């Protein structure tokens, strides 16, 4: 079986996000990019399945420009066998469904039998693409999974389903699984992997290579547009209490009860 891992680059989680002057988007000039943390769990799970000889190949699927190649090479260095970069001027302005159409077409082209993806990307926080890819391919999905077992053509997945309840879900492959934190601990690349990854060819597929109608993706196909970006409103300055600890604690509880009215 070939496992496809959807991988996106995002600003590192310790980044300060600045909005560009016109409010049209984020000022990306100083941002350090990383593999989306949830995609790292998806990649690690795929690599573990390859280590266990359940999968014979792990292929990374990335929608992005040439600036995302470094993150793809990072994934190759950790042990992914191959990668394809999905890039076309017609992809610009895609909404989640557009991205899902591109990824689904790439998964089909590569003969993928299981897709692993992060439960969300920590930039747009949309949590939409994995379920959309599943629908486009007609495959079952389990989202927000923190434990996965495969047995022949079937899977068993554990997911947090709200209120602290954890559902154990079964279904048949092919399928799409989206990964939550806790699924595993991502490995680091070893020197040998890094050297090998440098020499790997990363093919680039455009809309034509994927058999996609350019009108179905990018700004042309988008039903969702994001406008008027802004920074969050600043909080009013707070109050630092002073005195001995017992008196500060008493004052705090009084403030919570009488001023903030949250008790």
């Amino acid at each position, binding site marked *: 079986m070939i496992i496809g891992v959807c991988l996106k680059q995002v600003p590192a989680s310790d980044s300060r996000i600045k909005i560009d002057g016109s409010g049209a988007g984020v000022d990306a000039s100083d941002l350090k990019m990383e593999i989306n943390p949830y995609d790292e769990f998806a990649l690690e799970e795929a690599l573990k399945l390859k280590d266990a000889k359940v999968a014979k190949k792990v292929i990374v699927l990335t929608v992005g420009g040439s600036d995302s190649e470094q993150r793809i090479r990072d994934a190759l260095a950790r042990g992914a066998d191959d990668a394809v970069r999905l890039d076309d001027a017609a992809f610009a302005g895609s909404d989640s*469904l557009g991205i899902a159409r591109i990824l689904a077409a790439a998964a089909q082209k590569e003969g993928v039998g299981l897709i692993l993806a992060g439960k969300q990307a920590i930039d747009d926080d949309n949590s939409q693409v994995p379920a959309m890819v599943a629908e486009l391919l007609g495959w079952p999905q389990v*989202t927000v999974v923190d434990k996965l077992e495969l047995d022949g053509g079937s899977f068993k997945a554990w997911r947090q389903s709200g209120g602290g309840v954890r559902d154990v879900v079964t279904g048949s492959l092919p399928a799409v699984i989206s990964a939550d934190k806790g699924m595993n601990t991502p490995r680091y690349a070893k020197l040998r992997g890094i050297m090998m990854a440098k020499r790997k060819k990363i093919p680039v597929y455009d809309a034509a290579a994927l058999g996609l109608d350019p009108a179905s993706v990018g700004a042309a196909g988008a039903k969702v547009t994001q406008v008027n*970006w802004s920074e969050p409103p600043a909080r009013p300055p707070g109050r630092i209490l002073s005195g001995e600890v017992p008196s500060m604690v008493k004052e*705090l509880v009084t403030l919570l009860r009488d001023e903030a009215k949250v008790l």
Partner: protein
Amino acid sequence: MSNGILVICEHDGGVFKKTAFELLAKAKSLGSGSVTALVLGADSGAELGGYGADKVVTVAGDFASHLTGAYVKAVQGAIESLSPAVVLAAASSEAKDGLPRLAARLGLGLGTEVTELRADGGAVVGRRPVYAGKAFVEVQVSSSPALFTVRPNSFGIPTSTGASAPVASLGLSVGGGDALTSVVDTEAPSSTVADLTEAERIVSGGRSVKSQDGFDSLIRPLAASIGATPGASRACVDAGFAPHSAQVGQTGKTVNPSLYVAMGISGAIQHLAGMRTSKIIVAVNTDAEAPIFQHATYGIVADMFEVGPLLKQELEAALS
């Protein structure tokens, strides 16, 4: 011609969740036509009329043991039968799992976890946090219907007017054949407190709890004293002192409580992103320069191991 707003109203065994009331009242206030409540897996909901529902439609079926497939089929059926202009759902586990799939099936646009909604001409526009709240953006959806999930606690819970709404079955049949997967087991929650994302009060600990024992003996009892949900920073979780499910921040849960108590948390930017919309923030930290104090409503510069037990005592006294 599409018209009105369809609100997916979630319930636990027929008892409606607070988000159902919150969304119905918001839908009504938008003045974008009639408000219809959709109830899956229960034949009830007349009381939803008190919160703004003009009518209630129901779909019978086993939604608990067939994740995704049954939900998507039922909402699809309701859309095809009622032609709403807008569909609203709470940003719950079910909706975040099912609505993207439905959007892909019908070619619709979906705005995720909006915290504001407003009518703009004939359309409804959402506003949502991105980068876990480090930025905000307006989301415009051009499809009909436009789909939105809404973060819980965004609008507040209205009081019922006492009105009742007519309840009718949509007559859809949703069965095992629609299943994509099966839920074969359900593991009960390890505690009875609210989920972090829905919690009204949260007490969180940082890595300086020093051990799992430190978390269990300081943070958990303090949280329990005010019925709060315990949370943790990424450093605390990565050190193994608290479970992954307790993590607040950009790679954990984004929370929106009335009261957030940060114990020994310095306030790394990725943690602040996940809790900055808390209404009242209390910070306890030995380092007066810690960034968390710039965001705190009230701050105490002291050792949390000294503050914690005293604070628990005083809170218990205040609440008794």
